[in-house]
Every structure is written in C-alpha cells, then in structure tokens.
C-alpha cells in the first residue's frame, strides 16, 4: 500500500500542474500514470495556448477572451468559470514562461501570438507547432524540481470510495487500485484526496486525432462510483484531420494562412463564414467541410484540401515544421508543394466529470481537471487554444483545492476497503481468463468506433442516434463474452484494452443518449431534425448518473453572468 496526501491520476498537463500546485502548498503528492508523463497526449498539442497578453494586439483583453469563449461555446459555458479562466490566463502562461517554456518570440523579445478560430484577436501563444510538447516537458520538469513522486506505467483499475453503510453521506474517494504494467501486479494507493486528470475519450471513435491511450477510462471509473458526467454529447470534430490516419493538422496551419478548397478548387468557406473564412470556429468549419463532402464537392473517399502552397517554404519551415513532417511522413505530401488532404475527425471531449472551478466534484475527496473534467468552460464548442489553457488554470486550482481539503480532512487508513477492491479487481481479471471467448474484443471495438463515426457524428438525427444507441447496447450485451488471450499480467495489453473497452462502451452510451435527448442544435451538437438552438428548453447542462439500468439524465442550469445568449454569427 502506497500512501500520499494527494494522488493525481494522469501525468498530462492537467495532472502535472495539479501536482505542482499541491506540492507548493506543502502536500505530499504523487502522480500515477498509464504512460510516462512526457508521453501523455498533451505533448501532441501543436497550435498553442490562449491568453490575453496583448503582445500581438494591445487592444486584446481578458474580457474579450471571455466574450469570444462564451460565444464560441454557443452560450453553454458557465460564464463565471470562463471569466476565471480568462482572467488567470496571462499569469498562468507567464508562469510557464518563467519555468522555462520556450515560447516563440516577437522581435522585441515578448511572447508571440497567432490568431486562432473564433478568437477575435491574435491571442494564441505558441512554440512553433510544438506547444503541447514544450509545455508538457516544462511541467514535468517542475514536478521533478519539487520531487513529486511519479508512478509511471500504472493503469488504474478502480477508484476506491469509502462507504459507510449506515451513513451514505460519508462517501468519500480514498485512493485507487492500479495495475503496475511492467511488473504485472496489482497495487493499492491510499490518499486523502484523489485528482482525476486522465484526459479525453477520443478512442470511442475510430476517426480520431487522439492517442491510443485516450480512452476516457478515468471518466468511467468516476462515473461508476457515483460522480456525474456533464455534457458528454458535446464532442468536438476537428476540421482538419489528415485523411487516412486522422492525425491532427493543427489550426495553426490555417492561422498561418492556409486555405480550404473543395475539388473544384473553390475556397468554400466564403459560403459559410464570410467574415472569418477559414478561421471561423471549429464546429462551423467542420460542418462546412462535411457539407461539401456530403454534397459531392469533396474528393473520392471523402476529403477536401488544405492548401498551404502559397504560404511559402520559409514560413512553413519556421512556423509549421511539425505539420510539414507529419504530412510528408503520414500522407506522402509536402505542403510546400501540394495541398494536404484532410477530413473532419473526432478531436476533443467537451464533457467530462462534473466539477466546479476548483475541480471539486459531487463526490467528496474526488477532484477533476483537464480534458477529463467539465467545469464547464467550453460549453458546446471549444475554441482552439483554450484547452491547454484549461489544463494549467484548472489544474492549478484543483491541486490547491485538493491540498487544502486533504489538510482539513485527514483520514486514518482503512485497509479493508482496499482489500475488498483489490479482491474485486482480481476476481474480475480471473473471470476474464476463465472459459471460452464467445466474443472478440477487437470486433466490438471496431463496431463501436464505426457506429460513433457514422451515427454520432458532425451531423446527427433521431433515426441515426436511435440506431447507434441500440447498437451500443447490443455491444454492451456482447461484451461479457470477451475473454483474455493472455493470462500473465506483465505488460498485458490485452487485459488493459478489454478494461478500456468496457469503459468506452459506457461512455459511448452516455454520449449517444445525451445527444438523442437534446432536441436542438448547439455548437458541436448539430441535429439536422432540430436545426436551431433552443434556449427556452435547452439552455442547460446534461448530467448523466450511473445506475444499474444505464445512465440517468438530469439537467442543471447554465451560469449566465453578463452575456445574454445571442445569435452566433461569424
């Protein structure tokens, strides 16, 4: 049994920032992560991080950042949370700079900024097109500096919640059970507070820009233990995933002047967002591309072109070197010479574990931050560059809040609950090893991904969503027939993949059910059978709670401070 005051699950930007904050308050903190922290998917972020530093345009302000974020969210974001994020953004970014993040600079030495979609001002700070990578390294370095204990290659199996049968109010997150992947054994981690920072759930879809480890399992583990999931039906499709592999081609490519063209060579964005063109928000650009493809103006197979050839070799090499490498290595196209084939791809999970601006969830002792959390600052559509920001702003806040909670609410060890949870995990693994398989893990995973890609996609309608829900429930029914093909626990990917699939199926159900219920179009959620936003009935957050019969949906109001919902025109 390992014991720490604070246990952070996930070593991405959010997790590392939370650990740093907790350590700075003197808490004994550890990070537990499925992959080594620097290998987290935060490192894949290319484009940048938003903050109204006003270096590129002094007229920019945190208020403008707030307004454009709320508008971008299609008025579903909680406005107090957005205000907090945008106010704190400049400090958090400058802090990253002081900690060593090598941002790209302006001639006078200040941090450079580029324009991003729907932002109003050039507000995105960047390090060429490796922003996530350099921020990830910087924050991991700060963890090392503070001697934060890191348990890497640990896959968490369950969230341990202490439950007093006589007093249900005494429920409290107490730690986790994890699989030590390289040693192949189960371990118990006890803590006074647990911070969930396990990232997004992209792998529920097949066409996704997300890494293979982004399965959303942290969301599912919290959900199974009673924490509600918020706004899961809001899933961001990035306009420009590389055709074939869906590897991300950053919005930075359009920020540096890239054009979107259909097969007739037309810059079609003029028909969808006359003013912002290619730099309209993601949901709008993704729908534009999907429409072009659906109406036969895409290329065979379903893609359009992202043309950078006019941007010039020099600027591409300086500002977009990573994009160039990706196109050459993964699509065989050099963007200096030819346009890049792209299609909309699943990219970001706006929903997540419901929490407030301090990461506090309805389950005492459990905190959440980063993509796995829903604060909510992205509402129905996230603006590019706002989620790296979210990780550092709300990571810091969750770390600090958890540290305070842990200090105020220390608990003595209760070994029994850990023994019980370990036994349950062992039993589950044993069960997966017994008897003959009647179902194939990979087949279920593929069918789930295809269902989500085809029916819970950019454009949705009741018929598709019902079919998708039936399919997911069928797959859930088949899942118990899956069996392990390998028994030994050392680096047993088969086991991990099966456990992740179980989590993804439940999340897919929550997403689809929420999408079916929401009979309006808002941000990324576009219902062709309900094409307009309906503030009278749907200006509210979805909350999904786990029950043995499936997800139970409730709703809660959106916090509106000073920005009244208005039509969203770009």
């Amino acid at each position, binding site marked *: 049994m390992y014991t720490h005051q604070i246990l952070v699950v996930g070593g991405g930007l959010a997790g590392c920032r939370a650990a740093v904050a907790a350590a700075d308050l003197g808490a004994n903190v550890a990070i537990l992560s499925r*992959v*080594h922290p*620097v*290998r*987290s*998917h935060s*490192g*894949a972020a290319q484009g940048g991080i938003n903050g109204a*530093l006003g270096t590129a345009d002094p007229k920019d302000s945190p208020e403008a950042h707030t307004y454009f974020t709320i508008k971008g969210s299609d008025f579903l974001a909680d406005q107090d949370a957005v205000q907090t994020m945008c106010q704190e953004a*400049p*400090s958090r970014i*400058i*802090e990253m*700079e*002081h*900690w*060593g993040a*090598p*941002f*790209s*600079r*302006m*001639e*006078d*030495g*200040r*941090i450079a900024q580029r324009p991003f979609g729907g932002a109003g001002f050039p507000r995105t700070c960047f390090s*060429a097109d*490796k922003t996530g*990578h*350099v921020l990830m*390294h*910087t924050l991991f*370095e*700060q963890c*090392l*500096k503070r001697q934060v204990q890191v348990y890497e290659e640990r896959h968490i199996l369950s969230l341990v919640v202490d439950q007093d049968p006589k007093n249900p109010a005494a429920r409290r997150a107490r730690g986790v059970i994890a699989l030590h992947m*390289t*040693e192949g054994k189960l371990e118990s981690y006890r803590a006074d507070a647990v911070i969930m920072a396990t990232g997004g759930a992209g792998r529920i879809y097949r066409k996704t820009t997300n*890494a*293979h480890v982004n399965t959303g399992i942290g969301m599912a583990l919290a959900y199974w233990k009673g924490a509600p999931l918020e706004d899961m039906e809001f899933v961001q499709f990035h306009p420009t995933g590389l055709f*074939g*592999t869906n*590897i991300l081609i950053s919005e930075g490519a359009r920020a540096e002047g890239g054009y979107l063209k259909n097969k007739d060579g037309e810059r079609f964005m003029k028909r969808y967002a006359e003013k912002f063109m290619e730099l309209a928000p993601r949901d709008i650009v993704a729908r534009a591309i999907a429409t072009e493809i659906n109406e036969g103006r895409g290329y065979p197979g379903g893609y359009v072109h992202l043309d950078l050839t006019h941007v010039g070799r020099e600027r591409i090499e300086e500002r977009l070197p990573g994009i160039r490498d*990706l196109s050459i*290595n*993964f699509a*065989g196209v050099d963007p200096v010479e030819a346009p890049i084939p792209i299609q909309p791809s699943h990219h970001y999970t706006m929903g997540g574990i419901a929490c407030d601006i301090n990461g506090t969830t309805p389950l005492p002792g459990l905190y959440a931050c980063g993509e796995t959390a829903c604060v909510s600052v992205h509402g129905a559509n996230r603006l590019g560059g706002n989620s790296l920001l979210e990780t550092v702003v709300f990571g810091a806040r969750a770390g600090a809040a958890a540290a305070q909670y842990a200090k105020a609410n220390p608990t003595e060890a209760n070994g029994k609950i850990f023994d019980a949870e370990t036994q349950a995990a062992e039993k589950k693994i044993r069960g997966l090893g017994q008897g003959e398989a009647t179902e194939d*893990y*990979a087949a279920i*995973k593929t069918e789930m991904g295809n269902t989500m890609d085809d029916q819970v996609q950019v454009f949705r309608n009741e018929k598709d969503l019902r079919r998708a829900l039936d399919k997911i429930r069928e797959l859930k029914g088949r899942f118990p027939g899956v069996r*392990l*093909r*390998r028994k*030994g626990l*050392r*680096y*047993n*990917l*088969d086991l991990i993949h099966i456990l992740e699939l179980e989590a993804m199926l439940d999340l897919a159900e929550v997403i689809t059910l929420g999408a079916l219920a929401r009979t309006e179009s808002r941000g990324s959620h576009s219902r062709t059978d309900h094409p307009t936003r309906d503030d009278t009935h749907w200006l509210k957050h979805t909350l999904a709670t786990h029950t043995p019969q499936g997800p139970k949906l409730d709703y809660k109001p959106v916090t509106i401070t000073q920005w009244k919902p208005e039509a969203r025109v770009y």
Partner: protein
Amino acid sequence: MAAETQAKPAETQPTAAPAMQASTQAIVTFKIYRHEPTVEKTPHFQTYPVETRPGLTVLDALIHLLDTQDGSLAVRYSCRHAVCGSCAMDINGKNMLACQTQVARLGPEVTLRPLTGLPVVRDLVCDMTNFFRKYNLITPYLVNKTKDEKDLTREWLQSPRDRKKIDHEIGCIMCGCCEGACPVLWTDENYLGPSAIAKAWRFIADTRDEGIQERIGILDSQYGVWRCHTAFGCVEACPKNIPLTESIEKARRRIIRYRLRGK
C-alpha cells in the same frame, strides 16, 4: 527494476504463425522478438505474415497483430504520430519509431527487436529506468537565481535569435533511439548519453537559465561529454533530427570556457 539485460535470441521456427487469407503479393513477414526475462531463459523470434497496404506503418501492423492474431504481444505505444516517444525499437537493425516507419519501405522481411542495449521488460518493451535516471542527473529544469519568479506581470524577454539557439534540443521526445545507437553506452551504461547531454545543453543555452554550476559537475565528469567519440550513431538514429553531436560539441566548448573563467 526486474528486467534483465537483453539476451541473444535463439532462432526458433514459428510455432503459432497464424494462417492468412491467400492474398496476392503484398504479404510481408514480421519476425518479432519475444521474451519475458523473469519467466523464460531465452528469447525467441516469432513470425507473422502481415498484409501490407500503402501507408501502413510498423506500428499499425503491430496493433493489427495485437488485435486480431496475438493478444500476448507487448509493445509500448500511444500517440501514433512520432510525438510521444513510446514506440522506439530496433527495426531491421536500426533504432527507429515504429509509428513513423512505413512497412512498404522495409522489404519482404521485417525484424523487430527491442532497442539495442537496453534491458527488456517483455518482447519489444524495454526498461527506460536508466535513461530517465541519467536525465535526472543534469538538473533538468530551468534554474533561476536572480529574477523574481513570482512576478507574473510580464515575461522574461528573449529575442527570436536567442530562442532559436535551443530550437533543435527542445524537440527531443525521449524515445531512446539515440541511447541504443551509441557504442559508448554499449560498454558503459553510466555514460550520460546523447539525449541527456542535449537536454543539459537545452538549458545551458537558454538565455534565461542560470544553472551552469549545477550541471557542470556531471557534464565534466568521467560519465560526461568527454566520453563521446563523435561516432554519429545517435544523430543517425534520432527521429527528430536533433544534431546531437553538435549539442555535445557546444557543451564541450562551454565547459572549457567555464574552466577558464570559472563561470
């Protein structure tokens, strides 16, 4: 760590080579190193037929095998586009990233082993403990002694020219390809190695850093920069094209200057 140093594998014939549909030419044979050192004395190779298609990477093929043919394979991966540094392995004798290597460019037989020189956890997964231990030795964070770190009103200035000085080194994804390709490391695993030195240089060359003193000891030690004999193995292996020997050379010049000037 429980892992043991890589042993020489015995060339066993495939036992469980799964049958494939009789398809036309585009079948490539994957020979994969299999070993769990704590359980089996000796490693062996297992062969698998893999149907190729344009664009298929070695990692795609491995995931396909894992999903459809052999759930027992161990391989480390995550991002699938050369940013997370997980999937470094020895592919036909060279250390490369599986996700960045097209099967079509490799010929009819693809031999996969774990990174040369590193201990093995299982199959293609090696133990990176020593790699990260050495990285820890170089004080791997920006050291600031004179500026007010708590003043968050404005950034510390850095000109684009100064920023450019660390452009290459900040790209390191800690994959270990270079580590496995360095002949010095084959004989002495305590040599800091190219990536840790480049990382040290990334900080030393950063105009905001004041940590030369903290780093000079280890860099100028018997495990430091002088061990490199500029064999370029690392540069050739680095998937991020980091000019490691140049970084090492710059670090050397800086050490000499430090010796002369005491700072």
